[in-house]
């Protein structure tokens, strides 16, 4: 099989992720210690009701009387065994809190991303076939606007229009309080609550993806192998959707994977605006209460998510384009 196989490629990529994870742990540790004040206070957070006993216990646990190197070792070991710290404000281990809220965020982010990629790529493909039309100009303008718009403001504007003035969709939370119904009814309720927050994120990304998709479609459609397909007498529809599309989707998927980090950031703002009970909202609450263990735990966790997302994108790329596997 040799080094060109998919298996080896995946393994190589995973090994390359290890030093990055180490780097992130080191970075977090440095931030912790560079911050003004007693590191023990940072490990507890400012609203944990730090008594002398707790402070002493924390000092012992994190080895704050030992050398920095040993402290780093202790801290690193904890992270790698899943101990992301304890939120004294919420009274639960950080990792447990994160895992509780992750499904809601995953629902929001994945829905937004899928919608954005689907709509973005499709509009780009359609518009690429009429590069001088009004719709093409519209895409350009729309993409410029999407980049300049603050996500949290867009969300509030959507609430203003579709929740306050025209009460179509709920603008808060994930479920209607006190609603008890069948699984189908609950699902429908969740979906109704999902519309506005997901639309906020999706609009911003559709703006970018449609423009990118148009550009790459234009390039692909002018390429040699598409000309060959056409000269073979294939119908235009087949040329566009079966052959060109695959190559045009690639850059969009790559960028989408690369922007996973931005999606997480967007989730913080959007979840705050819509009171969506996810990890982003958890981050906001943690910031509000200076719950340092919680916010640093979320930072490490989301960085790990980005590493995984990059890995997945790389693997997808390797599947779609075998030339990549040689790297």
């Amino acid at each position, binding site marked *: 099989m040799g080094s060109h196989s998919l298996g080896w490629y995946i393994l190589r990529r995973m090994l390359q992720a290890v030093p990055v994870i180490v*780097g992130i742990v080191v970075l977090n540790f440095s931030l912790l210690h560079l911050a*003004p004040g007693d590191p023990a206070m940072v490990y507890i957070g400012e609203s944990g009701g730090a008594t002398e006993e707790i402070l002493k216990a924390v000092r012992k646990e994190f080895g704050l009387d030992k050398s920095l190197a040993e402290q780093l070792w202790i801290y690193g070991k904890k992270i790698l065994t899943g101990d992301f710290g304890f939120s004294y404000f919420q009274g639960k281990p950080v990792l447990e809190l994160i895992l509780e809220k992750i499904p809601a965020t995953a629902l929001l982010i994945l829905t937004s991303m899928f919608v954005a990629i689907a709509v973005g790529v499709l509009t780009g493909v359609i518009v690429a076939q*009429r590069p001088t039309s009004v719709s093409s100009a519209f895409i350009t303008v729309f993409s410029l606007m999407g980049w300049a718009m603050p996500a949290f403001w867009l969300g*509030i504007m959507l609430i203003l229009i579709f929740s306050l003035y025209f009460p179509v969709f709920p603008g808060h939370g994930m479920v209607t309080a006190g609603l008890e119904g069948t699984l189908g009814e609950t699902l429908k309720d969740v979906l109704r609550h999902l519309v506005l927050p997901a639309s906020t994120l999706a609009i911003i990304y559709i703006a970018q993806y449609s423009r990118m998709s148009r550009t790459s479609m234009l390039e692909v459609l002018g390429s040699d192998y598409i000309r060959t397909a056409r000269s073979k007498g294939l119908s235009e529809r087949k040329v566009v959707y079966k052959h060109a599309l695959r190559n045009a989707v690639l850059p969009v998927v790559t960028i989408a994977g690369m922007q996973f980090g931005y999606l997480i950031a967007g989730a*913080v703002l959007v979840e*705050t605006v819509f009171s969506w009970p996810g990890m982003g909202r958890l*981050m906001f609450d943690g910031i509000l209460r200076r719950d340092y263990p919680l916010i640093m735990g979320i930072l490490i966790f*989301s960085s790990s998510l980005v590493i995984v997302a990059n890995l997945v994108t790389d693997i997808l790329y390797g599947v779609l384009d075998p030339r990549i596997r040689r790297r």
Partner: protein
Amino acid sequence: MPALERETTRPTPLVLFWRRHFKNKAALLGLVILTLVLLTSLIGPFLYAVNPFEMLGRKFLAPGGKFFLGTDYLGRDVLAGIIQGSRTSLLVGFTAAAMMMTIGIFFGALAGYFGGMVEEALMRVTEFFQVIPSFLLAMVVVALFQPTLGTIIVAISISTWTGTARILRAEFLSLRERDFVTAAKALGSRSLRIILREILPNALPPMIVNASLGVGVAILFEAGLSFLGLGDPNVMSWGFMIGSSRVYLRQAWWAVTFPGLAIFFTVLSLSLVGDWLNDFFNPKSKGRIRG
């Protein structure tokens, strides 16, 4: 017959001209807006010397009359907030972008010029920072080090420099093979001098574009941070206005809408100018340099 049969996929000269015409108009619009914002931040507070933090009128006053843009839930003048906020946004925007460029140039130039182990090490560090969600990092830094304009600027710049670093590295990788560098080396110039005097000036075009977009990103970051309550409590900020008034959306939509529009138009104008600069320096390329 589908439109594709008639039109070529390579734009005709007429199409290119039309596009350039639009782009020039767009860039002009961007420049006009940017100048307006700049003027507002410089002389606005003198022409309209109203304290945005003071409760001057009844709360929830609609725009019009004595308060041109209305008042918020505390009776504060929204227009004064917009004017003062422009100072914060532009100050943070330009300073953070300048810092971001400095860090990015440092990493990118050295990595691109020296290659080898230096490049490996610098690029590894760049990768760490790239993996961490930038806005989250900025949030954590500001929360840990207490929110002041200074920490916000530093936090934004250390969260956003990786794009600049990658661009600079690519530029230096290609530029260092060029004849004028070989000539300088033959003349015995030291590395630092070659980097600063020979290569960097030639890498200016993408740097300028990157910088203009960087200001936009910094403004969006500052707005987001202030929105979440991580802004400097002593200065007025557009993000803060949106964040504090959003609970009262039903009673005073103007207190949220106008600051948001201010952010939008400022960042848009920077984007338009940046795009035009990109085309100016790369008339033949179809791509975008967005780091």
